C-alpha cells in the first residue's frame, strides 16, 4: 500500500476527520458518490470502536498500485485494544473486503475497495493527491490544530533523530569535542573528553581546567583564550593535558572556533582537542637525535683541532731539533775554532769571554734538548710491558760518570714489570737519578736508595737521597716548567727536568710528589698503575 495520509484516533472529532478524509480519497480515486459514502462510513465506523477508550489507534489511508495504475483503495486501522466491534460488523455490510490481522501486539483491520476505472498514477499524481489530502485548507479549527500538531510531531521526531546522530558521531570519535560559553565554561563535552578528564564537566569548570592543564601552562592558556575571545578569530593551540587513567600528561593539538549570532556577537565556541602525543614524541626524538649529531660533530671538530695542534707540536719539535740547533752549533764551532787556533793571541779577558760563549752555547744546547724531550712526550708510542729493573740499570749506566765523580752509592730493590712507554720511563728514572746526584751535599758521600713496592694495582717507587733537600712548600712550583730553586752558578739545570718527569707520570695515569726539608735529603715518590686500561 502506498500511504497517502494518516490520522491518530483519539476522540470523536477524529471520527469526523476520518470520514472526511475517506470521502476525499474515494473522490480523488474516482469512485461514484454512493461508493464514496460507503467507504467513508465504513472507515469511520471501524474507527468508532477504537476512540471509545484511551488508545493508540491509528488510521492510515492509501492506494495499491500495479503497473502505474491505481487498483484499490485501502484503509488500515491499527490499535491495541477495542471495547467492542459493532463498528466493524456494520462496516462489513458496507464493504466486501474487510480483514482482521494481528501484527505484533497490535490488531490491524484492513478495508479494501476496488477501483474499476484503474486511474493512471505517476509520482506527480501521487504528490498532488498528497497535497490534496494533507494540505487542503482546513475547514475547522480542530482540523487545523490537528494538522499543525502532526507537523510538529514529525519535526520533533526528525530533530531527535538528528540530535542522536550528532551525539553518536561526536561520542564515537577519538578526540575531545566540546563547546564553551563566553566565560570559558564547558557547556558540552563528548564522551571521549569526559572519559579523558575522568570527572564531571562541573569539576573541570570549577578548577578552570587546573585539574587537567599543567600549572606552569595554565596562566598562559587562559591569556591565549582571552586573546582569542577579544579578537574573535579561530585559534589553534597545543597543550599538555592530564590523562586521568594513566596520570601522564599527553600533548594535544586543537582549535577553538567562535560561534556568532546574526549581529556578529560571539555567543559560544566550538572546540576540539586531538591527542598528538605520539607525534610529539617522534618530533622530540628526531630533535634529540639532531642535537646528538651536532654534539658529535662538535666533538669531531675538537678532535681534529687537537690533532692539528699535536701536528703543530711535532712540527715544533722538528724545528727545535734542526733549525734552532743549526746557528747554535755554528756559535759553538766558531768559538772552539778560535780557541783551538788563536787562543794565544787573545788577552786574558778575551779568553774568558770566549769561554763564556762556549758555556752559554752548551747551556742553550741542553735547553733545546730538554724542551724537545718535553714536547715529544706523548702516548702515540703505545704501552707495552716494561721490566723496571732494566730501566733502573740503564739509568745508572747513563749517570755512571757522575756517580764515579761524586763517589755515590746507589742501592735498589727488585722492581716489577709494569705497562708503560719504554723511552719515557727510562727518561723518568734517568731524570730522578740525575736529580738526586745533582743536589748533593759536598760534605757527605751521596747515598741514593731506589725502592719499589706494589700495593694492589699501584706501584710506588721512592727515590731517596741524603742531599741538600728543599723546602717542600715549593713542591708544586718545582714540577712546573722553567722553575728552579737554586741559582745556576751553584747547581746547573734548565728547570725542565722535573716538568718532564711530571708529564711522563701523568701520561702513565700516575702521580709524582716529593717529601723533603732543607738539609735532610729528599724523597721523590712516583706512583704508577701496574696495568694501563687505555692503550
Amino acid at each position, binding site marked *: 500500500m502506498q500511504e497517502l495520509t494518516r490520522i491518530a484516533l483519539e476522540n470523536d472529532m477524529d471520527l469526523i476527520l476520518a470520514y472526511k478524509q475517506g470521502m476525499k480519497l474515494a473522490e480523488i480515486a474516482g469512485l461514484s458518490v454512493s461508493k464514496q459514502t460507503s467507504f467513508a462510513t465504513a472507515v469511520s465506523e471501524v474507527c468508532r470502536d477504537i476512540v471509545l477508550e484511551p488508545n493508540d489507534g491509528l488510521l492510515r489511508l492509501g492506494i495499491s498500485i500495479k503497473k502505474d495504475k491505481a487498483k484499490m483503495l485501502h484503509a488500515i486501522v491499527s490499535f491495541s485494544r477495542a471495547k467492542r466491534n459493532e463498528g466493524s460488523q456494520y462496516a462489513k455490510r458496507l464493504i466486501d473486503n474487510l480483514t482482521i490481522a494481528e501484527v505484533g501486539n497490535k490488531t490491524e483491520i484492513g478495508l479494501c475497495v476496488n477501483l474499476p476505472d484503474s486511474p493512471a498514477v505517476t509520482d506527480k499524481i501521487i504528490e498532488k493527491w498528497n497535497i490534496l489530502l494533507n494540505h487542503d485548507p482546513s475547514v475547522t479549527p480542530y482540523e487545523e490544530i490537528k494538522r499543525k500538531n502532526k507537523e510538529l510531531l514529525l519535526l520533533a521526531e526528525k530533530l531527535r533523530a538528528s540530535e542522536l546522530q550528532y551525539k553518536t558521531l561526536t561520542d564515537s570519535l577519538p578526540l575531545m569535542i566540546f563547546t564553551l560559553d563566553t566565560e570559558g565554561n564547558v557547556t558540552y563535552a563528548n564522551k571521549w573528553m569526559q572519559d579523558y578528564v575522568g570527572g564531571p564537566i562541573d569539576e573541570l569548570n570549577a578548577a578552570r581546567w587546573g585539574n587537567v592543564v599543567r600549572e606552569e601552562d595554565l596562566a598562559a592558556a587562559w591569556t591565549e583564550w582571552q586573546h582569542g575571545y577579544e579578537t574573535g578569530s579561530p585559534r589553534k593551540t597545543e597543550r599538555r593535558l592530564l590523562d586521568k587513567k594513566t596520570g601522564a600528561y599527553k600533548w594535544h593539538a586543537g582549535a577553538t572556533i567562535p560561534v556568532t549570532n546574526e549581529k556578529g556577537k560571539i555567543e559560544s565556541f566550538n572546540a576540539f582537542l586531538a591527542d598528538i602525543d605520539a607525534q610529539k614524541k617522534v618530533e622530540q626524538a628526531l630533535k634529540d637525535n639532531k642535537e646528538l649529531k651536532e654534539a658529535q660533530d662538535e666533538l669531531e671538530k675538537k678532535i681534529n683541532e687537537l690533532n692539528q695542534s699535536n701536528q703543530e707540536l711535532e712540527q715544533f719539535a722538528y724545528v727545535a731539533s734542526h733549525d734552532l740547533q743549526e746557528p747554535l752549533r755554528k756559535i759553538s*764551532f766558531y768559538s772552539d*775554532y778560535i780557541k*783551538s*787556533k788563536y787562543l794565544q793571541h787573545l788577552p786574558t779577558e778575551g779568553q774568558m769571554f770566549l769561554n763564556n760563549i762556549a758555556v752559554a752555547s752548551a747551556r742553550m744546547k741542553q735547553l733545546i734538548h730538554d724542551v724537545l724531550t718535553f714536547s715529544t712526550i706523548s702516548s702515540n708510542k703505545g704501552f707495552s710491558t716494561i721490566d723496571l729493573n732494566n730501566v733502573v740499570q740503564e739509568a745508572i749506566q747513563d749517570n755512571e760518570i757522575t756517580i764515579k765523580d761524586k763517589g755515590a752509592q746507589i742501592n735498589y730493590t727488585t722492581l716489577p714489570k709494569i705497562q708503560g712507554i719504554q723511552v719515557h720511563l727510562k727518561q723518568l728514572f734517568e731524570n730522578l737519578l740525575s736529580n738526586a746526584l745533582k743536589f748533593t751535599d759536598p760534605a757527605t758521600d751521596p747515598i741514593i736508595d731506589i725502592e719499589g713496592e706494589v700495593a694492589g694495582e699501584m706501584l710506588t717507587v721512592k727515590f731517596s737521597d741524603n742531599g741538600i733537600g728543599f723546602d717542600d712548600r715549593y713542591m708544586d712550583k718545582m714540577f712546573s716548567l722553567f722553575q728552579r730553586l737554586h741559582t745556576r752558578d751553584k747547581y746547573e739545570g734548565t728547570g725542565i727536568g722535573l716538568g718532564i718527569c711530571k708529564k711522563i707520570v701523568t701520561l702513565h695515569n700516575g702521580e709524582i710528589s716529593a717529601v723533603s726539608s732543607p738539609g735532610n735529603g729528599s724523597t721523590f715518590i712516583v706512583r704508577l698503575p701496574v696495568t694501563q686500561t687505555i692503550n
Partner: protein
Amino acid sequence: MTRIKILLADDDFEDRYIIADAFTEIGYNDAVHMVTNGEEVFAYLQAINDPADLPSLIVLDLNMPRMTGTEILANLKSNDLYRSIRVIIFSTSVNEKEKKQCMALGALAYITKPVKYQDSLVIARQFQEYSAMEKDNGLSLSSDV
C-alpha cells in the same frame, strides 16, 4: 789534476766552508767537489762520461731546498749508474726516524755535523777513508761514527 773522490752537497755556505777548511787542513781538499743542491748533484754526475771518473763517496746534507738529502739518496740508489757510489748523510742533529729511513735506503753512515774544531778534522779524515776504500767492498760500516 787530482781525481775527484768526494762529492759533497750542502746549501749552507758556512758548513761548506767549515768542512772545506778541515779537508784543507788534512791536505785532501783537491779531491772534494762541492755543490749546493740536489739538481747540481745530478748535473755533476751526468756530465761524467767515464764511469771510472765517478766519485767514490757522496756526502749529503738533509735539509736542503727543493730536494732533500733523503730524496737525493733515494734517487741515487734507484739509478743503475750511481747505485754503487757510497753515500753518507751529514746532518745537524740525529733524528732517529730520519736516520732509520736513510739507512734503510742504503746510506753507509749518518754523521752529525761538528760542534768542535777537532771534530771537524776527525770527520774530514773519516770521509777521506770512506772515499779511499775499494768500490766493491761490501762491508757495512758502523753508523755510529
